């Protein structure tokens, strides 16, 4: 019975998007709204299974086959995948997308689902490689020379990371005779480090993910929304599983998470380019997601929603430069979505980010908690730049919340109510964090501008740093 259910889920989550992608490719379809039923089916199925509860895992193909896992964790990510795709599709309907975009979206959807339900190290390797190729094509769709360069950089770094992951898989197989994730506790720690590094390249986590600001900042805004909303999660979801299952990884991943949160925020506070700033926040939010491996998926769904909303809202702006936006002001119809998104990511109650942050802070303690509070305040500081952008005259508030905006907003509000963290102490805490952040913004950062060095974001440095990190992990565990 479970086998049959699994086949049904695989055909609905993976095969249907693939088939529709191939058919769109053959029929040269350009309208992404045709695919809305596919996304909706994913979201509805995931929502139903979340409400129903329960978990089971299945091996497809018998002996040495591929193991799939259907539990709350995977269904949460699948739900996020469906919701983000619905929102992005609703937002890009007016543009004429290039011909390749719609088939690629369908295939990306299917592959992301496959990553989230996979419980097999090698299957994750191949799915993430497919995700990498799709992202590579997506980044290039905008045609600017710089996008080609950032795509090439992305693929080279990602491929080196995947080679490390492959070697990690091999050592895992050698020790246990299986690729299933259940064997993770038994595999040697060096292999776990290789797996962690390989996944953190795709997940945009600290150091390994430094390709991210360039690629996400340069891509078209709808593409950036997909990159930050879904593609980054395809690295993070297996990483979370790894941290949950393997004791070695559960020590190393939270360290990476905190470093990632602090690093991303400290660059975002001083960046004047709105898309670059959002891209740096993807690094820092990856840290928030990974900080508590047991609850990361609950943060991930919120992050997927508000980050893709923010990227879409930022794409509508007349300029990317925050200084010039500050002088000219922005029209109300562009301002409102940005404002709400910025509040959500800062953790304002009723807007998605609050419940997620409360979950994370509820389970952290000690020094990591202190550092994460700093990162949360930093988030508020950097988003104060958006919150306090002046309104210019002549805007139309009615146009502000388009279909996609309403959709995202509804999801975020519902998400927060579902989290059930409306306790006075949590509300106070988050308000204090936001207040401190805004105070710092007015007192310090709005008056000073600091240029942090960005040398580490070049190709050779990222690749080299992968090995430095590996050595560091081996050294720490050896001591």
């Amino acid at each position, binding site marked *: 019975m479970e086998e049959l259910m699994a086949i049904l889920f695989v055909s609905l989550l993976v095969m249907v998007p693939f088939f529709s992608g191939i058919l769109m490719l053959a029929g040269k379809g350009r309208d992404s709204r045709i695919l809305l039923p596919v996304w909706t089916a994913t979201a509805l199925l995931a929502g139903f299974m979340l409400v129903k509860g329960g978990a089971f895992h299945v091996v497809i193909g018998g002996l040495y086959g591929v193991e799939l896992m259907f539990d709350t964790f995977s269904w949460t990510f699948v739900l996020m995948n469906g919701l983000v795709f619905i929102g992005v599709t609703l937002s890009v309907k007016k543009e004429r997308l290039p011909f390749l975009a719609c088939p690629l979206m369908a295939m990306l959807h299917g592959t992301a689902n496959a990553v989230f339900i996979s419980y097999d190290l090698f299957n994750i390797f191949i799915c993430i*490689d497919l995700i990498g190729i799709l992202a590579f094509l997506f980044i290039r769709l905008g045609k600017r*020379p710089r996008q080609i360069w950032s795509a*090439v950089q992305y693929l080279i770094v990602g491929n080196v990371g995947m080679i490390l992951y492959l*070697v990690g898989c*091999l050592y895992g197989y050698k020790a246990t005779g299986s690729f299933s994730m259940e064997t993770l506790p038994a595999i040697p720690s060096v292999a776990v480090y290789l797996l962690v590094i390989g996944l953190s390249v795709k997940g945009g986590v600290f150091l390994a993910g430094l390709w991210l600001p360039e690629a996400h900042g340069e891509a078209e805004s709808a593409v950036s929304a997909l990159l930050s909303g879904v593609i980054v999660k395809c690295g993070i979801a297996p990483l979370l599983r790894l941290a949950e299952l393997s004791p070695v990884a559960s020590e190393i991943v939270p360290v990476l998470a905190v470093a990632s949160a602090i690093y991303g925020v400290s660059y975002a506070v001083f960046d004047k380019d709105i898309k670059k700033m959002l891209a740096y926040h993807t690094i820092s939010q990856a840290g928030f997601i990974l900080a508590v491996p047991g609850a990361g998926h609950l943060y991930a769904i919120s992050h997927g929603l508000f980050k893709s909303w923010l990227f879409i809202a930022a794409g509508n702006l007349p300029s990317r430069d925050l200084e010039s936006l500050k002088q000219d002001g922005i029209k109300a119809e562009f301002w409102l979505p940005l404002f709400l998104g910025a509040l959500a990511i800062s953790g304002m109650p009723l807007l998605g980010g609050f419940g997620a942050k409360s979950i994370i802070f509820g389970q952290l303690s000690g020094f990591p908690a202190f550092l994460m509070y700093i990162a949360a305040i930093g988030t508020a500081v950097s988003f104060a730049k958006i919150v306090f952008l002046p309104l210019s005259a002549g805007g139309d508030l009615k146009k502000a919340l388009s279909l996609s905006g309403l959709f995202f907003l509804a999801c975020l509000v519902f998400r927060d109510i579902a989290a059930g963290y409306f306790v006075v102490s949590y509300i106070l805490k988050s308000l204090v964090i936001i207040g401190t952040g805004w105070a710092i913004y007015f007192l310090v950062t709005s008056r000073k501008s600091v240029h942090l060095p960005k040398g580490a974001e070049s190709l050779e440095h990222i690749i080299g740093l992968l090995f430095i990190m590996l050595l560091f992990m081996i050294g720490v565990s050896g001591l």
Partner: protein
Amino acid sequence: MDIVFLARLLLLSVILIGLWGVLYKKNLIMKIIAMDIMNTGAISLFVLSSWQRSRAPVIADSTVKVATSDPVPQAVILTAIVVGFSVLALLVVYVMDLSRYFHTLDTDRIQERWKS
């Protein structure tokens, strides 16, 4: 010295030579070839691990029990070869497209343009 250990050292050195190329070569095509060499090294490690000093995993008769190499790493690594090839083909197209805009394949010179 154990043959498998010796072979493994040599194959890891293939990966290292590839890495050296990725780090030091300036030409993007050379970087891609170096990456391919790294990939070849990783693939060879899989094949080496499947080698149990016995024959190929093709069985003549399903009723006689014979010891063979482990077919599982070999089968999964076929997949990885294809993936490596696909990535490479796509990268070559992109890199050549890049050269159309910059008239150079030197990574330092391309990166110089956005040194803000």
